[in-house]
């Protein structure tokens, strides 16, 4: 896509001098990923989105930079970063595109994290360095066609045999699903009503009976690979089970990691839209003056900047709590719910400010706007996070 409308380097948005709350390393990491996105992702993302293609050629570069599983320890080939640094990486990737951030989120938080948290030492040594180097691509199979917000109801089963396990079931809306070489699949090992029997399995995708099929017709996250997984009598060895996984809490703890990253990531998308809107408002002349000089656009820009700044502070404090070990899933729900909604609003307002040009892939706001509808819905919908917070406040579950 053309680059006439976009600056070659992104300068970020920092109205409240939040940079001063970051360490020198955190800023350096953020700036490095930002440069990488400018140089590698921005030149291709518009066309990838239009073509409905994930820019696979960027995986080695992302791996070399060290963004995959960046907050996991160095002994497994990861960068061993703190959680604020990890959040800033997600922010910069999603400044480019939510689909690219989704790829990194799934690889790091939903594939590498469960292997790290619930896997045996052998599983960790086998898989984590390969996943960090991008030599293996992972996907996470939890959601099913009829069980989205209610994953405990899943009907995928894992039956123990004399020499291992047999998995059967269908998983849907699986990011990286058709290009993955390894899947972390969640299944019930006991009765279909027994959510406590949910366990995780590491499934090489070339195992007989495993198929991943692209989901066609997406109008959102078009530069991301989303697939449906079918498991038909998939035979696995005994050591395919994640030994320390147990119950729905295990996959939910992965989602907490991923949602944490999302709460940061969407700030990047919102910053990209705000940045584009500001530039456009200063250059676009209508009725003889720049539209940035009109009250209606100034209200839009003031709202965007205010909401972005609030989200930045929310995520930074959440990150410090995660580093201190005081973060709860409910804290993450608030940040995911607030920040994704904020980013959706920014993207929509930016697209409107851009007028007719705003519908073109040459600009970024409408791509972000469409992407963010998925982000609003996945990893716990906006509504589910409202109910999680409602339960936290009242002690009463409404779901």
């Amino acid at each position, binding site marked *: 896509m053309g680059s006439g409308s976009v600056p070659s380097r992104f300068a970020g948005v920092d109205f409240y001098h939040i940079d001063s709350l970051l360490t020198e*390393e955190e800023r*350096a990491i953020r700036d490095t990923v930002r440069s990488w996105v400018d140089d590698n992702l921005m030149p291709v993302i518009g066309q990838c989105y239009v073509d409905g293609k994930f820019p696979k050629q960027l995986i080695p570069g992302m791996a070399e930079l060290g963004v995959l599983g960046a907050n996991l320890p160095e002994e497994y080939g990861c960068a*061993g970063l703190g959680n604020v640094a990890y959040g800033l990486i997600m922010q910069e990737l999603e400044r480019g595109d939510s689909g690219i951030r989704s790829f990194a989120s799934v690889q790091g938080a939903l594939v590498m994290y469960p292997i790290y948290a619930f896997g045996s030492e052998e599983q960790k040594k086998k898989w984590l360095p390969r996943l960090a180097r991008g030599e293996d691509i992972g996907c996470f199979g939890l959601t099913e066609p009829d069980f989205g917000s209610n994953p405990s109801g899943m009907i995928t089963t894992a039956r123990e045999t004399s020499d291992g396990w047999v998995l059967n079931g269908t998983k849907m809306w699986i990011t990286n699903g058709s290009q993955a070489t390894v899947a972390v699949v969640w299944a019930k090992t006991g009765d279909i009503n027994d959510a406590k029997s949910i366990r995780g399995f590491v499934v090489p995708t070339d195992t007989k009976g495993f198929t991943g099929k692209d989901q066609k017709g997406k109008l959102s996250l078009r530069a991301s690979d989303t697939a449906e997984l079918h498991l038909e009598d998939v035979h696995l060895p005994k050591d395919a089970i994640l030994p320390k996984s147990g119950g729905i809490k295990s996959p939910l703890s992965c989602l907490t990691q991923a949602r944490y990253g999302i709460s940061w990531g969407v700030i990047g998308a919102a910053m990209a839209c705000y940045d584009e809107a500001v530039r456009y408002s200063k250059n676009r002349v209508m009725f003889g003056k720049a539209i940035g000089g009109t009250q209606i656009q100034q209200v839009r820009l003031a709202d965007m900047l205010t909401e972005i700044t609030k989200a930045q502070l929310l995520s930074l404090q959440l990150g410090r709590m995660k580093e201190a070990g005081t973060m709860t899933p409910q804290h993450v729900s608030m940040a995911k719910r607030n920040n994704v909604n904020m980013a959706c609003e920014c993207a929509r307002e930016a697209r409107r400010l851009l007028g007719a040009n705003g519908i073109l892939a040459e600009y970024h706001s409408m791509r972000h706007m469409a992407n963010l509808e998925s982000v609003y819905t996945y990893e716990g919908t906006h509504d589910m996070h409202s109910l999680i917070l409602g339960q936290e406040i009242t002690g009463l579950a409404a779901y």
Partner: protein
Amino acid sequence: MKIAVCLKRVPDTTTKIVVAGDGKSIDEAGVKFVPNPYDEYALEAAIAFKEKAGAGETVVYALGADVTQETMRTALAMGIDRGVLLQSPGSPDGFEVAKALAAEIRTGGFDLVLFGKMAVDDYNHQVGIMVAELLELPCISAVSALAIDGGAVTAEREVEGGVEVVTCQLPAVITADKGINTPRLPSLKGIMAAKKKPLELKPVTLGAGGVTVTALALPPERQAGKIVGEGPDAVPALVQLLRNEAKVI
């Protein structure tokens, strides 16, 4: 192979510059500082040579205020082994800076001393060449391709209308031009590792020097464009303006 690289901390080239109240320096408030882009070519060359040789040491030198350490850590994150900061507020006189750097580098036993061909903040093209002179070493400036073979270097320089190929014996001073390589981004692991690499601080006192900046001004604002008309009828007016006002034809 022991290689020194000299680095300068400069304002980001995309920064909007504001002249400070004294009328001869820039207002540093809110300005982002980066390694001088030409020095990044020098850093990349040093790291790549060491990687290729499989042994040796790379050292980054800078002269500046204490905040320069942050810029130097970028070099360490890229892969340079250690750093030495000559603590001083800096100087408008390149010769004073060159004297301080040469005094420090002289005893280091370096095979190669690398610079960027110039700093993008003052465009002086001076310090690398002056350091070579002070160290009595051969100097090849504005190098766009560089190879080491045994005890000699071969360098290419882009000259008017062609390429000049130059060789000299090591030790030598080289100043790097763009085209010599593509500087790597530091990896995230590299950024974390940079924290643990040695960065030595040495106070230095510069002489007064012979050069003083007396004024610094921004370029004049661009004038708005002028539309003289449309179609063939507008041509005579356009020609007249190009000839008499813009004086380009």
